[in-house]
Every structure is written in structure tokens, then in C-alpha cells.
């Protein structure tokens, strides 16, 4: 479904992502972990079109996406959330989803929007102002809802659980598991919490200093000496 081939992203003299090759299959759930500054969000930005890779190739469902702008990638079926929620201002929660659906999926289906609102426990907040009247966990749910409204086949979730209290985090994790079962989409999720990622993802990829250093099951990856070194500060030669 998604295929990255030697993706490199440079900002001036800084190489944020260095030759990352990665494939994600249909309906696969993959965790992306790594220390702060490892290049995880930059890789998300490269996949979703927010930044253009300096080198490498990227395809989604066999189509080359490297030159496609961000809005086109969304319409192709790549949905994403932002680490810091970005609700569309001046709009209600429902309008946020309707706009996402109208432009991302190319049609308006209010029943589907209601279904997403209900699934994400946002039905009672549907007519609230999205930017000013939601709690953090509701904003995170809205981020997921907007992405879902675009009818994605691949969902990029950037630290959707970060900053949530334990109870909210547990509830959100359950929602994500149900989301995968219900919508049958591929998910690539960035998360710092190793226990969370191990429970959610049958496969985990580890980035360190912009390089992919491990790719396997959680047990394989988290027992890898190089991964352990990267988390304890000795991973870069």
C-alpha cells in the first residue's frame, strides 16, 4: 500500500530523515517509535506532503506521490493527525468533519459524519465551536475524526495519546483498536509509550537520528541492543 524507498529529508545542513525504506501493507497497524528528534514527525510530513523529501521515492497504492501536494495526498487516501491538534477555527465540530469529508472524500454524507461523531464519543459536542470548546482528549478525537471523514486507506496518527490522562489514554487506545476493526484501514502510529505501542501494534519500526534501525514485532524490536542503546543515549556512531 505505502512504499518508501530511501527517503531523505534535509533542512539546510541538518538531515532529519536519512535513507528510510519502509513498506506498509493493507490493513496493517505499524508503530513508529524513536527518541525525541529521531525524525518521526518529519517522516510523517514527508508521507503526507507537508515537506518534500530531498531524495528517495514514495508511492501509495502503486501511484507515485512524491510530487503530489498535501491536499492531493489526502484525496488519494492518506489521512493524518497532528501532534498538536489543529481544529479548523470558526467551525463547529460537525462542520470540521463535513469540510474534511467534502474535500477529502469528494462528497457529503451526513449519516457517515454522524456515525464518526458517535464512534468518537463527540455526538454531544457536534455543535460546539471546535477551537474553543473542547477538552484535549476531545480535540485529539476530532483530529482522528477529520482524518476518518476523508475516507482514508492509510491513517497517520502523530502522538494522538500524548498528554492524555491514564483513563483517557486507555479509552482512546480501545477506540483505536475498534477503529482498525471497523474501518479496516492501515495505520502508522507515532507513540512514545512502549507498552502502549506493544499492545496496539503487531509491528514496530524504530527511527534514530533519522535512520531506520529496527523493524519487527515489538518483542524483537524492544530487545534489539541497538534500539536499547538509542533509548539510553549511545545509539549514534
Amino acid at each position: 500500500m505505502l512504499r518508501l524507498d530511501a527517503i531523505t529529508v534535509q533542512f539546510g545542513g541538518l538531515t532529519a530523515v536519512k535513507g528510510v525504506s519502509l513498506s506498509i501493507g493493507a490493513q496493517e497497524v505499524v508503530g513508529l517509535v524513536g527518541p525525541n528528534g529521531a525524525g518521526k514527525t518529519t517522516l510523517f510530513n514527508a508521507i503526507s506532503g507537508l515537506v518534500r523529501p530531498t531524495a528517495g521515492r514514495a508511492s501509495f497504492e502503486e501511484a507515485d506521490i512524491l510530487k503530489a501536494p498535501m491536499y492531493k495526498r489526502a484525496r488519494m487516501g492518506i489521512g493524518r493527525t497532528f501532534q498538536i491538534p489543529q481544529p479548523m477555527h470558526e467551525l463547529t465540530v460537525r462542520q470540521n468533519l463535513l469540510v474534511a469529508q467534502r474535500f477529502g472524500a469528494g462528497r457529503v454524507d451526513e449519516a457517515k459524519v454522524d456515525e464518526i461523531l458517535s464512534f468518537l464519543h463527540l455526538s454531544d459536542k457536534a455543535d460546539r465551536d471546535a477551537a474553543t470548546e473542547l477538552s484535549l482528549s476531545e480535540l485529539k478525537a476530532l483530529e482522528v475524526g477529520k482524518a476518518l471523514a476523508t475516507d482514508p486507506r492509510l491513517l497517520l496518527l502523530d502522538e494522538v495519546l500524548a498528554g492524555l490522562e491514564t483513563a483517557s489514554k486507555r479509552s482512546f487506545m480501545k477506540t483505536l483498536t475498534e477503529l482498525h476493526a471497523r474501518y479496516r484501514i492501515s495505520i502508522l502510529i507515532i507513540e512514545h509509550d512502549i507498552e502502549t505501542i506493544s499492545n496496539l501494534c503487531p509491528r514496530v519500526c524504530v527511527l534514530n537520528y533519522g535512520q531506520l534501525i529496527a523493524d519487527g514485532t515489538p518483542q524483537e524490536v524492544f530487545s534489539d541492543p541497538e534500539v536499547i542503546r538509542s533509548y539510553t543515549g549511545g545509539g549514534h556512531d
Partner: protein
Amino acid sequence: MRVRVLIPLLVIVLYGVVPFALAGNNYVMSILVAALIIAGVALAWALLGNLGGMVSFGHAAFFGVGSYISAIVTMKLGVPVFAAMLLGGAGAAVAAVAVLPALRLSGPYFALAVLAYAHIFKILATEFTTITGGAGGILGIPTLPRVLGYDFGSKVGGYLVIVTIVLLFALVYARIRNSYYGYALRAMHDSEDATRVVGVHSTLLKALMLFLSAFMTGVVGAFNAHCINFLEPDYAFSSGWTMLPVVAAIFGGYRTLTGPLVGAVVVYTVDQLVFKSLIPSGHQIIFGVLLGVMILFAPDGLIPLLAKKLQWVRQPRGCRDPRTESVC
């Protein structure tokens, strides 16, 4: 009062009361027409700012291009005046293509880039003497025509035309504002990425708003040319065609639909009919002070201020909180 009642009432007043009440007073009617010309440009400016998220200091360019094109195609090609006015709007929209590279700029940079374009168009109008008449200008531009026996070239006729233009533009603005395109455009102001990530082609939508705003301004400029029957570059591309509408829109409340219209009518008519009689020379200083006060104490403008006060008055007495003007 509900919109369903308010709109028919407004239409009756604008088409049934005002033309008859002021038919014998050419001076007041001229001021009202001038106020509506400013209202049309203010609305177009507010559309670009409110929906496109772009602040322009160069709408005089579109106004001037629209007026020149309409004047030239009527005089040199014999195009009927009303069709020429539409061509003037189309010409202004085409001229806006030159502004497209500035779309990648934002805030004051975009505003200044458009200001620079306005100067370029003014220079072009001055230098292309064979077409525009150069600095000497164009005399004898055809007035608005007689249609089915009614003379639209009269003061009342001109009023009916400009009030129709402004109402049509307001209708278009309202329809866009309340559509999914309008939602996306409004959302773009605070985070363009938030809209692009869900499939919104933000650059295209912004460009469309620029073209529409330029078209509207061009049509109003064309109307003005056929009203005054004379054009010269310093007048057609005067910065006044940018500044007065901007002041009117901000005074009325540029984030609202009615703000720019009410702002223009209030600013221009009160200035010309009241302040000018009090201080014949330099009367604009009063409005300068009023605008300063408005920006300081009610930065959202007149219409949101009135709406807030009206809401407060309508609340039951026990619910009123003068500090917060909160609703129970």
C-alpha cells in the same frame, strides 16, 4: 427581527422608499450613490480579507482597470454599457492574474505587493496614451442607458443600478460564506495546514477569492466611470478607492456581511452631510477620531457592537451583567 422579515423590508425600503423619498434631491442622491460605490468595493475587499484571508492595499488597481476597460469598450468597440460593465469586472479579474505570485506572501507583505501592482497599473494607464488617453484621460464616457423607457442615466436610475449590484454581490458573498468552500476558507486563516491535510486546495480557493474580489471591484469601478463620464489615471487608480472602503469595512465590521455596507453608508453620508457642514475644510478629521475610538473600544466594528448591545438589552433584567455582557 428575523432575516425572513428583515430582507423583504430592506428590499422595500431600498427600491420602494428611498428612490421616491430622495427623487427630488440630486445632492443627497449623489452622495448615496457614492456611498454605495464605496460599499461595493468595501464588500469586495472584505470578501478577500474575510474569506481569502488576504489584506489588500491595492483594490484601486481593480477599480481603475474595471473603469478603463468599460469606458474603452463602450467608446471604441460600441459595446452596450451594461455588458461593458461586466467586461470591466472580467478585465479586473484578468488583471488579478498578475497578483497571483503574491499569493504565496501573507500579511503585510501581500498587502504591500498589491499596493505595488496598483501603482504599476496606474503607470500603464498613463503611458498607453493611444488606448487610455494618457494623463489627459478620457472624456465623454457614455452614461448608463435608457432601458424600456426608463433612464438609468438619471440620479435615481444610477442609484437603482448600484444598489442592485451591491445587493447581488452581498448575496454571492453570503452564499459562498455559508458553503463548504466558505467554511474551508474561514478555517484557513488560523491554520492552512489543517485544511490542506483534509484535501482542501487552499491556493486555488484563495486565488478564486482574489478573482471574485477583483471582478466585483472592477464592476463597481465600471459603474462609476459611466456615472461620472470622465476618467484619468490619478482619479481611477487613486489610493482613495482603497482607503475609503477599508475604513468603511473596518468601521462597520469587516468580519460580518453587513458591516462593510453599513460602514460605507454611515461613514460617507454622515461625513458628507453632517461633518462637512460643521467643518467645510478638513471635516475628515472627525471621522479619523471616530475610527480611532472605534478601533480602540470596539475593534470588531459597528455591526458586532450593535448586535452585542441588542442581545444585552433583550436579556431579562436579572441576567444582565454589564461587565461581561454575558447571556444567561
